[in-house]
């Protein structure tokens, strides 16, 4: 049955009348509502209001961030697909390409940690396979309030289980991630998930509806009442009111997710379809409207044809449901039987729910009645764009300019390192990543626990390195330097494995952008990211903005998470982060000034979060990366570990740790008495100067590696030797000699999180 556009739009019988209160409930401003009326030339129906509300939500429209995002570098010879599609795509050698993307699922995880995190992983997998890429790795970046709070333990336990269960079941290894804890995340946990997939360049498919008369098919799970208004929910602060309007929890079904993955890749391979897109935030509405807008066409949806899970669902509910594990496919009508057959092979159904039209309208019919008709371009493009005021708060400035109170007592070097390794943010994340299958697909070269994950690309000589990074304390203290530091740390992590950074995806988690100090953080952090990406030639290929991460208790620290991928031309050249051979020389690359501003030492041992974070010299970072990459390619490096939180001391200790707890730690004898002009032990060992790495090199390669560093103008100092398993990590400074048993340090780091997360802490009700 087709409807002629001349039919007038009528509200469905049970639909409420439009009132000011209803408009407000839909998170639309008066001005936005006026604009909607002028686009339509009439009052919208309830269904239309819902559609606008979803597509004009911050989550879908990027109305507060678009102008800033446009300042990112997005081009380069490696870029096949930049921002605007479901995932970015970069070129690899021999006709291969990598698709990758990061996305947040913060608000749903605050409500139901397990399902929120699981569906976050499900969503990011779909974003990647929708491009025609087979997912080969997952990463995740988590932020939580301190584990001293029962609620945070409950959230953390549920989130980690949710992330794990989804990826494990689908069979995609999790190769890395990060976890940090700080008070601002209490009640506002952050769950960012990243997926990396590979494809042949010729198999790339874009989510563009084309071909008038082509059909739209819903593939996968049935539509229920889950997550209605999820997109607008994710675009507001969490308050008691939002608690009441909380959408019904979306439940993930990784089993169906896996079938959908296989069916989607088979559909793309078969050439039977024109386009495919996952139904993510704002479900059927955003997937169809966005595909139509990209293709410059209109669509008509027949909501009564959509397979539903519950009786009596209204068009409004069907359009806005965020039920998981669903895809929307565009195809020529003659191809329907072939498509149905492919889906049936994977035990899924495909149902025609609409078609592509030539008039550019976004039209919805239900039981023969036209319930929505909106000019499609206006729906997607006419959302107002805001340029909020940006101004740094005086508090932020004074925190940056402050130094620790003189009365602060500094712990001795010996205990400082032990205490730092017990801080959950710095400790080993083994408890987390052992819940994630990191070896499925049998291509893992470096799993979680190294500087970056490395996976072999099947049937090729090369590998992909990947990481997610952000030090939000740096960003809070200086958003511009913090933004640069996030990219620099990611690139350093990639380079430490021997891989060349290729490009990034970002997940920009911030508070309410309508507050000038928050928008200042956002703008400056983005400027930092953009500058770093330009220097490193790592274009931004896409990402996600998550605003409104605040509740009455406070806002999160600004957390622009950078997800980066790099190329290892030959997997044989991968470099581990840990020392491997006693007798190898230990060398420090880069220069040490003893910068303690913003450091973990100040934050966790003195309880002082402040001071300027370490400045990032992008040129120095680039040169350091060059040395690490070339050193690996020439086979000169036995290990390389970047210096990040906790400085040289933490880096040296981690380099001694064994890969599995059953193995023994190596030791190291390090002499820093002449290093860095005789700096005091605390700044020397715990300062967080950027652009540094600790490497180990076989004695016979030291001269060649020294020449390499000199060629690139990177300072290199030989500071000691790797010693046999069971020996100490000893560090001599101009003032003192300190020695630790690295096995003891390793067990402090390994036990930090599990001893706080007893089994009971992960029981459902504990934190309620």
């Amino acid at each position: 049955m087709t409807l002629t556009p001349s039919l007038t739009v009528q509200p469905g019988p049970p639909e409420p009348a439009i009132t000011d209160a209803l408009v407000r409930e839909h998170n639309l401003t008066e001005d936005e509502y006026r604009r909607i009326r002028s686009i339509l030339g009439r009052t919208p129906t309830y269904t239309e209001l819902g559609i606008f509300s979803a597509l004009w939500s911050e989550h879908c429209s990027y109305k507060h961030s678009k102008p800033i995002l446009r300042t990112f570098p997005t081009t380069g010879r490696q870029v096949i697909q930049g921002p605007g599609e479901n995932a970015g795509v970069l070129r690899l050698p021999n006709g291969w390409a990598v698709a990758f993307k990061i996305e947040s699922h913060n608000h749903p995880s605050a409500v139901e940690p397990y399902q929120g995190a699981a569906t976050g992983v499900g969503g990011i997998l779909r974003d990647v396979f929708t491009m025609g890429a087979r997912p080969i790795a997952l990463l995740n970046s988590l932020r939580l309030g301190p584990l001293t709070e029962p609620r945070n333990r409950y959230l953390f336990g549920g989130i980690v289980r949710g992330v794990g269960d989804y990826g494990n079941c689908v069979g995609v290894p999790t190769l890395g991630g990060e976890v940090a804890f700080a008070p601002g995340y209490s009640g506002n946990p952050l769950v960012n998930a990243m997926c990396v997939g590979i494809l042949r360049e010729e198999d790339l498919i874009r989510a563009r509806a084309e071909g008038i008369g082509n059909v739209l098919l819903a593939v996968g799970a049935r539509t229920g009442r889950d997550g209605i208004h999820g997109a607008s929910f994710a675009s507001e602060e969490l308050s008691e009111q939002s608690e009441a309007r909380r959408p019904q929890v979306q439940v993930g079904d990784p089993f169906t997710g896996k079938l959908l993955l296989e069916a989607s890749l088979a559909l793309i391979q078969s050439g039977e379809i024109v386009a495919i897109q996952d139904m993510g935030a704002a479900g059927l509405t955003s997937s169809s409207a966005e595909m139509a807008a990209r293709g410059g066409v209109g669509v008509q949806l027949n909501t009564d044809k959509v397979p539903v899970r519950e009786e009596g669902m209204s068009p409004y509910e069907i359009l806005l449901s965020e039920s998981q594990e669903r895809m929307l496919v565009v195809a020529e009508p003659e191809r329907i039987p072939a498509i149905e057959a492919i889906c049936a092979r994977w035990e899924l159904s495909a149902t025609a729910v609409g078609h592509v039209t030539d008039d550019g309208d976004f039209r919805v019919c239900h039981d023969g009645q036209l319930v929505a008709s909106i000019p499609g371009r206006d729906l997607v493009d006419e959302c107002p764009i805001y340029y909020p005021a940006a101004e740094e708060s005086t508090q932020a400035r004074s925190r940056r300019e402050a130094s620790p109170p003189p009365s602060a007592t500094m712990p001795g070097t010996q205990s400082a390192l032990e205490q730092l390794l017990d801080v959950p943010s710095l400790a080993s994340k083994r408890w987390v990543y052992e819940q994630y299958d990191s070896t499925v697909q049998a291509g893992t070269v470096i799993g979680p626990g190294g500087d970056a994950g490395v996976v072999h690309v099947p049937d090729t000589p090369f590998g992909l390195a990947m990481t997610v990074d952000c030090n939000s304390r740096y960003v809070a203290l200086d958003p511009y330097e913090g933004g640069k530091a996030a990219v620099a740390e990611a690139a350093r992590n990639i380079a430490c494995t021997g891989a060349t950074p290729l490009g990034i995806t970002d997940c920009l988690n911030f508070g309410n952008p309508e507050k000038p100090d928050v928008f200042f953080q956002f703008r400056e952090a983005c400027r930092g990211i953009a500058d770093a990406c330009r220097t490193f030639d790592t274009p931004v290929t896409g990402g996600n903005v998550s605003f409104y991460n605040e509740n009455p208790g406070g806002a999160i620290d600004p957390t622009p998470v950078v997800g980066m991928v790099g190329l290892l031309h030959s997997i044989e050249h991968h470099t581990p982060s840990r020392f491997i051979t006693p007798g190898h020389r230990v060398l420090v690359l880069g220069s040490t000034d003893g910068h303690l501003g913003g450091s973990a030492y100040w934050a966790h041992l003195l309880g002082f979060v402040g001071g300027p974070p370490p400045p990032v010299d992008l040129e120095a970072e680039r040169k350091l990366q060059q040395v690490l990459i070339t050193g690996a390619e020439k086979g000169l490096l036995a290990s390389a570990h970047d210096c990040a939180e906790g400085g040289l001391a933490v880096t040296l200790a981690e380099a001694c740790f064994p890969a599995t707890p059953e193995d023994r730690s190596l030791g190291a004898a390090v002499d820093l008495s002449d290093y860095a002009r005789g700096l005091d032990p605390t700044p020397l060992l715990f300062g967080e100067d950027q652009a540094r790495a600790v490497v180990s090199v076989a004695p016979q390669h030291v001269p060649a590696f020294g020449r390499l560093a000199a060629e690139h103008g990177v300072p290199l100092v030989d500071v000691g030797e790797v010693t046999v398993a069971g020996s100490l990590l000893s560090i001599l400074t101009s003032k003192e000699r300190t020695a630790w048993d690295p096995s003891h340090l390793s067990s402090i780091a390994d036990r930090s999180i599990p001893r706080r997360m007893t089994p009971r802490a992960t029981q459902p009700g504990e934190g309620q």
Partner: protein
Amino acid sequence: MKYRVHVRILPRPGLLDPQGQAVEHALATLAFANVGNVHVGKAVDLDVVATSEAEAAKHARAMCDKLLANPVIEDYAVQVEPIS
């Protein structure tokens, strides 16, 4: 008095229950006809000391609210029987 408490915790109606669906589907292929509305959840059995059956049930409900069930996605039911 000692009571045996049986708690059943099941997904809230309307929420997707993939496990229930899978079991329903499996039962159908095993030729168990006329079976529907299958849901899978958790069962918890425990002994509790209380002065009356009603008090035992009250305790059990408190445990569900506080720990055993997740009110965001689960409903629960409690049964109590005296242990001789």
